[in-house]
């Protein structure tokens, strides 16, 4: 198919080429021929023009010569005139004049004269003179003188004679002759026509050649056959013309001739034909060459073009075939494409589409043909579509070509769906077209929406994650969530772009972590590590880092790191590990089973005890341990208990793997989950086989022992009874000894004081002072010994009562400052504000310690000050360690002294006792007391620089409800028992007054009875519920307290009435005696207000006497403060412990004064009564009065008097002679009364 087409094409091509070539050759030949003809013609024209010009020139010259000859000839010219006429006439050689004979008679060249000229040689012929110019035959030579008419042999032009006859008038003719210079004309002609171009010849009409530029042509030769001559001779012919001829030498010439109109000359111009055609020939050669070259070139180009056409045609054929195949494939591809492909023309009309388009838009067949594209577009976008098409047409939307855009499509049914559109533009001869490739992206959009939601979700997670999340690249933070920054303590955004080095523990850790972490990520894609990290503030914490590459295949993609602060977890793990280790290393067996009883965990001890390995035990039930010796009821109880959520304890008879039996003490507890549901049980089992074995052995022994014990018990019971009797006897003995020691000691002290006052001998007084001091010291020693014996026997009891520390200190200060003032010292008390006020403990013992230390300080300080500092040493949960420092500026102590300071019976210096008194037991007791209060006492001291005692005591912290303080105990009582009814039974008015005063403080009005009988009568009258409390002295006249109590208890309704003994005996056995008699409690005289009030609080029925706080206006407090107002009006009285006395009257100095004065008024009367009873041998009555005196003296602080009265009482009770004691008492009372009278100016008062 292809070959014939090619052949035809080639044939056609060859034919065309041939035709073109032939045509070109013919045309060229014709043109060259035409050019040759034109060249010849132009040569003829040129020859004619030359001929014409030369003829003109020659005619003009001949005219001039004719005129010259005519002009000069008429006047018979001379030689000179002829010479002059030659000037400016180069065409003449000479001018001459002939005579009638033809001889030259005159000439411009003198050498011509005499030369004869024949007229017959001239033309026009004629012998008659005519006034015309005649032309002679050419001459050779320079002029007539050396020339000849013959044809010149020499090749020289010679000259031409010209003859002119002229009429001189009157029939006379003159003849002039000129020799015309041929050379002049030849020069002129030769100048125009070079010898090789042609030749110019001048012929005379008769055919004689005048001259020729052709040097071969000899002048004078007659050219008879010359066609020019022939033409000129023929009168009918033209006088000018041209023709071609072959010259004698065979050369072809183009001849133009022209005859002169007035002169017999004809000029012939011969142009060499070959020369004339030389240019044409050259031109023709060039043209032929050019045309041949052009033709060949054209042919070559045509061939080349043809070849290329052939190739193009072949390629086109192949391309067409390929195109057809491609079209087939394209159509197939397009038809099978899942994307819709629609082509529209420039108007937007659909011109092509693929089946996918029909499927996508719901059209079928040719429905789309010629339809506007807008059928596929929702109507609301039509306007945009049309303007878009216009912009496309204008080329303004070219940038969207090839780009993917998302648009909405419209199905035939009107449904809209998202499309991804790609536009392409193409052009054909028919115009511009646009093809859109569209893909339904509904699913993708949905996916994108899902992805967007997912991203938002992830973003939310990212932002709110409880762990830090960071995207790192090159170990720098690309982005991170807020939590990440919070973990590291950075502000929002502060970490973006930062290197993670700042987050690492150290640069080395950063490098090390980078090396192994990123290698691990490169290997496995992820990496986790718990690492110590650094916060912005420089603090460190443990973080769990988990990193993974975003794209493991792409390193530069960076990595995502999750960071959690696991400090707490690590701590918990450590705790957990600790617990686990505890469990693992526990000396008891621990196992955990699930609800089905399957073992999930056993500790190593289990393996040791049972012989089962952990692997053997796991998954099995603890029944493997059952020996079968434990009753099923035990197990039932066990399961019931633990499923009931309780712990089961018991001893189980189990067996080892080896079958060996063991006893195990088992505790099984349920383990609950957060919902309280039981998930597991933990069993703790202790191998008690050995213990039980021992126990059994013990039991065996016990059985033997029991027998022995039973046997011995009887013996011991008897011994115990005996011991109890002995103990009671010992206590009574000790109390009695104490009493008995104190009583005479009081007498010794009191009487030595009296004796000293009465005596005048200084030595005697000194002795008495020493006796008194020794007595006091002994009394103090006895008290201390009693304390010490209690401490040693472990019988020292501590109260646990709420008290106000500050009130205690205030009171203490009041007492001690008085003492300090006596010695001229300053007592300073500083209480730290932080010190708690409400404390729980034994305030008496605290006070004892304080008084002892402060007393010592005052005692050992001659001048200066004593400072007491109270503060908190340490706080505990419910206690406070109170810190008390007592600093003095006294004598101080050496290190050696300090070493023995707190040992009993030791004083720093034996002389101290002598100088300062004291038993040396005080500090020892204080230290024991402090130690028993979980504290201690130590001292810092230097000799001569004073001492500082540091006391630490631990006391309970009081509760808010105990806000009532010390003052407050009274206050508390006041508020509670304002209306309480209390009966005070004492034979001593002063005693009653004291008690009444104390009751009054708390708002209680006391009812008084002088003895037990009176009390019974009052109670009978009032009834059993009238009184809330009875305070009863033991020893009274008429009926003592014990008897009255026994009797009262026997009466109906009085069993519950609280009866408190008021006793001077302060021994435990006395209280037992009181309790035996039916008394509820006892309070020892001289009692202080605190213990008195505590007693009240303790015994008065609260329910019955709750006082309303609203009605309480605290009159007692007002009273107390009122009487406490004048503080320093009490003068010092010898033998009176005003401190103690004042304390008993709650610091009421006025009242104290009152009772001192009162006592001074009554005491002499009591002495008289004693005297009288002694005289009447009524020793018991006398003793009773002495007792009363003793009590009142003790209450008022008259230690010496009390001792003297006690001595008298003792003597009277014992039936001994009491005169001496009475005398001593009288003396002492007299001195005291005198002292009181003097001190309070009683005479003035009495006078009034």
């Amino acid at each position, binding site marked *: 198919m292809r070959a014939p087409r090619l052949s035809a094409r080639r044939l056609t091509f060859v034919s065309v080429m041939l035709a073109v070539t032939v045509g070109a050759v013919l045309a060229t030949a014709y043109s060259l021929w035409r050019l040759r003809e034109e060249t010849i013609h132009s040569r003829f024209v040129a020859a004619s023009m030359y001929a014409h010009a030369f003829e003109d020139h020659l005619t003009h010259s001949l005219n001039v010569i004719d005129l010259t000859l005519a002009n000069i000839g008429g006047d018979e010219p001379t030689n000179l005139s002829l010479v002059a006429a030659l000037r400016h006439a180069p065409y003449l050689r000479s001018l001459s004049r002939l005579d009638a004979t033809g001889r030259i008679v005159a000439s411009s060249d003198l050498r011509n004269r005499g030369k004869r000229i024949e007229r017959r040689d001239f033309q026009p012929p004629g012998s008659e003179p005519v006034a015309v110019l005649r032309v002679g035959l050419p001459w050779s030579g320079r002029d007539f003188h050396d020339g000849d008419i013959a044809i010149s042999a020499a090749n020289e032009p010679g*000259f031409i004679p010209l003859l002119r006859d002229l009429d001189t008038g009157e029939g006379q003719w003159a003849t002039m002759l000129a020799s015309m210079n041929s050379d*002049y004309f030849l020069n002129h002609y030769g100048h125009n026509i070079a010898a090789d171009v042609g030749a110019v010849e001048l012929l005379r009409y008769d055919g004689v050649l005048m001259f020729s*530029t052709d040097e071969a042509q000899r002048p004078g030769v007659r050219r008879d056959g010359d066609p020019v001559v022939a033409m000129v001779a023929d009168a009918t012919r033209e006088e000018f013309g041209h023709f071609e001829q072959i010259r004698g030498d065979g050369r072809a010439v183009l001849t133009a001739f022209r005859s002169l109109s007035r002169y017999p000359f004809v000029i012939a111009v011969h142009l060499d034909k070959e020369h004339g055609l030389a240019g044409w020939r050259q031109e023709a050669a060039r043209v032929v060459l050019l045309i041949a070259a052009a033709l060949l070139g054209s042919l070559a180009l045509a061939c080349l073009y043809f070849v290329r056409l052939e190739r193009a045609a072949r390629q086109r054929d192949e391309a067409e075939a390929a195109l057809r195949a491609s079209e087939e494939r394209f159509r197939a591809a397009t038809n099978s494409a899942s994307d819709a492909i629609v082509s529209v023309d420039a108007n937007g009309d659909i011109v092509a589409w693929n089946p996918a388009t029909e499927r996508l838009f719901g059209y079928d067949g040719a429905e789309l043909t010629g339809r506007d594209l807008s059928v596929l577009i929702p109507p609301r976008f039509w306007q945009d579509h049309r303007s878009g098409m216009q912009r496309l047409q204008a080329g303004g939307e070219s940038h969207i070509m090839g780009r993917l855009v998302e648009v909405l499509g419209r199905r035939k049914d009107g449904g809209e769906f998202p499309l991804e559109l790609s536009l392409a533009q193409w052009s054909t001869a028919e115009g511009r077209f646009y093809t859109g490739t569209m893909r339904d992206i509904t699913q993708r959009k949905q996916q994108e929406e899902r992805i967007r939601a997912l991203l938002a979700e992830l973003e939310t997670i990212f932002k709110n994650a409880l762990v830090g999340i960071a995207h790192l690249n090159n170990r720098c933070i690309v982005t991170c969530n807020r939590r990440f920054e919070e973990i590291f303590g950075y502000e929002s955004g502060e970490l973006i772009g930062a290197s993670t080095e700042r987050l690492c523990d150290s640069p080395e850790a950063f490098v090390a972590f980078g090396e192994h972490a990123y290698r691990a990520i490169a290997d496995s894609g992820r990496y986790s590590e718990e690492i110590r990290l650094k916060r912005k503030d420089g603090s460190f914490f443990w973080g769990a880092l988990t990193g993974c590459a975003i794209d493991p295949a792409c390193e530069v993609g960076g990595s995502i790191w999750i960071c959690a602060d696991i400090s707490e977890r690590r701590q918990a793990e450590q705790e957990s590990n600790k617990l686990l280790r505890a469990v693992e290393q526990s000396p008891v067996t621990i196992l955990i089973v699930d609800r089905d009883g399957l073992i999930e965990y056993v500790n190593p001890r289990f393996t040791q005890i049972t012989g089962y390995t952990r692997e053997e035990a796991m998954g099995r039930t603890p029944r493997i341990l059952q020996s079968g010796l434990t009753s099923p009821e035990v197990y039932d109880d066990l399961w019931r208990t633990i499923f009931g959520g309780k712990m089961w304890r018991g001893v189980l008879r189990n067996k080892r793997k080896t079958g060996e039996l063991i006893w195990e003490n088992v505790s099984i507890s349920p383990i609950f989950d957060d919902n309280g549901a039981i998930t597991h049980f933990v069993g703790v089992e202790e191998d008690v086989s050995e213990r039980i074995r021992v126990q059994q052995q013990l039991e065996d022994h016990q059985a033997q022992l029991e027998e022995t014990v039973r046997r011995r018990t009887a013996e011991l019971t008897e011994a115990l009874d005996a011991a109890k009797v002995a103990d009671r006897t010992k206590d009574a003995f000790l109390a009695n000894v104490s009493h008995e020691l104190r009583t005479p000691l009081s007498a010794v002290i009191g009487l030595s004081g009296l004796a000293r006052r009465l005596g005048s001998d200084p030595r005697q007084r000194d002795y008495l002072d020493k006796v008194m001091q020794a007595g006091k010291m002994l009394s103090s020693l006895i008290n201390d010994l009693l304390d010490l014996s209690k401490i040693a026997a472990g019988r020292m009891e501590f109260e646990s009562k709420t008290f106000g520390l500050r009130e205690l200190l205030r009171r203490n200060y009041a007492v001690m400052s008085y003492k300090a003032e006596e010695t001229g010292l300053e007592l300073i008390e500083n209480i730290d504000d932080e010190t708690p006020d409400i404390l729980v403990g034994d305030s008496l013992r605290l006070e004892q310690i304080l008084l002892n230390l402060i007393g010592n300080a005052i005692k050992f300080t001659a001048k200066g000050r004593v400072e007491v500092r109270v503060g908190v040493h340490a706080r505990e949960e419910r206690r406070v360690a109170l810190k008390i420092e007592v600093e003095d500026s006294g004598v101080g102590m050496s290190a050696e002294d300090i070493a023995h300071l707190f040992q009993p019976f030791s004083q720093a210096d034996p002389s101290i006792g002598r100088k300062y008194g004291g038993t040396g037991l005080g500090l020892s007791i204080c230290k024991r007391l402090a130690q028993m209060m979980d504290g201690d006492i130590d001292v810092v001291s230097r000799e001569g620089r004073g001492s500082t005692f540091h006391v630490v005591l631990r006391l309970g912290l009081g509760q808010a409800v105990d806000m009532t303080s010390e003052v407050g105990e009274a206050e508390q009582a006041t508020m509670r028992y304002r209306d309480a009814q209390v009966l005070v039974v004492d034979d001593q008015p002063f005693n009653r007054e004291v008690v009444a005063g104390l009751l009054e403080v708390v708002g209680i009005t006391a009812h008084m009875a002088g003895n037990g009988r009176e009390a019974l009568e009052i109670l009978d009258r009032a009834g059993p519920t009238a009184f809330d409390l009875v305070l009863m002295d033991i020893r009274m006249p008429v009926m003592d307290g014990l008897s009255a109590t026994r009797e009262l208890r026997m009466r109906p309704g009085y069993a519950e009435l609280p009866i408190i003994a008021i006793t001077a005996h302060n021994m435990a056995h006395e209280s037992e005696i009181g309790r035996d008699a039916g008394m509820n409690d006892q309070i020892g005289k001289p009692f202080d207000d605190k213990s008195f009030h505590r007693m009240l609080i303790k015994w008065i029925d609260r329910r019955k006497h709750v006082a309303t706080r609203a009605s309480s206006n605290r009159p007692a407090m007002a009273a107390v403060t009122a009487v406490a107002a004048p503080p320093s009006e009490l003068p010092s009285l010898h033998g009176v412990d005003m401190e103690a006395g004042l304390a008993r009257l709650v610091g009421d100095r006025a009242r104290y004064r009152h009772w001192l004065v009162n006592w001074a008024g009554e005491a002499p009367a009591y002495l008289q009564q004693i005297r009288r009873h002694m005289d009447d041998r009524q020793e018991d009555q006398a003793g009773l009065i002495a007792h009363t005196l003793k009590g009142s003296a003790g209450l008022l602080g008259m230690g010496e008097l009390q001792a003297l009265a006690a001595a008298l009482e003792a003597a009277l009770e014992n039936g001994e002679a009491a005169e001496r004691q009475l005398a001593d008492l009288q003396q002492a009372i007299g001195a005291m009364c005198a002292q009181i009278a003097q001190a309070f100016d009683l005479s003035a008062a009495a006078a009034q």
Partner: protein
Amino acid sequence: MKTIVLFLSCLSFVSSCAVAGRLERVQEAKELRVCIWPDYYGISYRNPRTLQLTGIDVDLARELAKDLGVQVRFVDSSFAKLIADVVQDRCDIAMFAIGITPARAEKLRFTRPHLVSDIYAIATRSNRRIKEWADIDRPGVVVAVAKGTYHEPVMREKLKAASFLVTETPQGREQEVESGRADVFMTDYPFSRRMLETTDWARLIAPTTTYHLTSYAFALQPGDDPWHARVERFVAAIKSDGRLTAAAQRHKLEAIVARD
């Protein structure tokens, strides 16, 4: 005796006045009179169409006047009148390529030559008798020279066979040759250039070897040493400073510049 001395003093004074006077007079008059031959093509030629003077010696005369700080005035002269014009003080100097001939040297004082030329023949182009230099000195040949030119004595002496024709004017020799009455006329290099350039009939026939060299120079009155020295200094100057060469090139005469 005193009278004789006085006379001699006066004589010497007059003489010195006369000699020294040329240069001073030129400077006083602020004018340099220069004799030229206005038909001397290339040397001192007055173009008949414009009357402008051109030529190498016209240029050099202007240069001399410029060097002297004076105006130049050209005085028409010719070779025939040369000596008379110079000696008779019609000009201060003759500057038209004056060939140094013994006859002239007797009357005039020449500067050192600035041009040097051989002798050339001019024939008509169509003259069949004279084809080459050797054809000149033959019997029947007529050789024309202008009267007063140095060719006249030279050719008179040199020609042996040819006829010798002396014309009164330079134009005469041309007319003789053109009308065929003479075959050639003899001239120098500058004039031969004129013939070839201004006529269509003239043909140059050059000697095949050196025929007769003639040096051209400026001519002064004899005896005026300062003036002569001054002009000589000028000649030396134009030769050394290139003015001579430049002028020769302007007038196509560089072939005949005399180089020292």
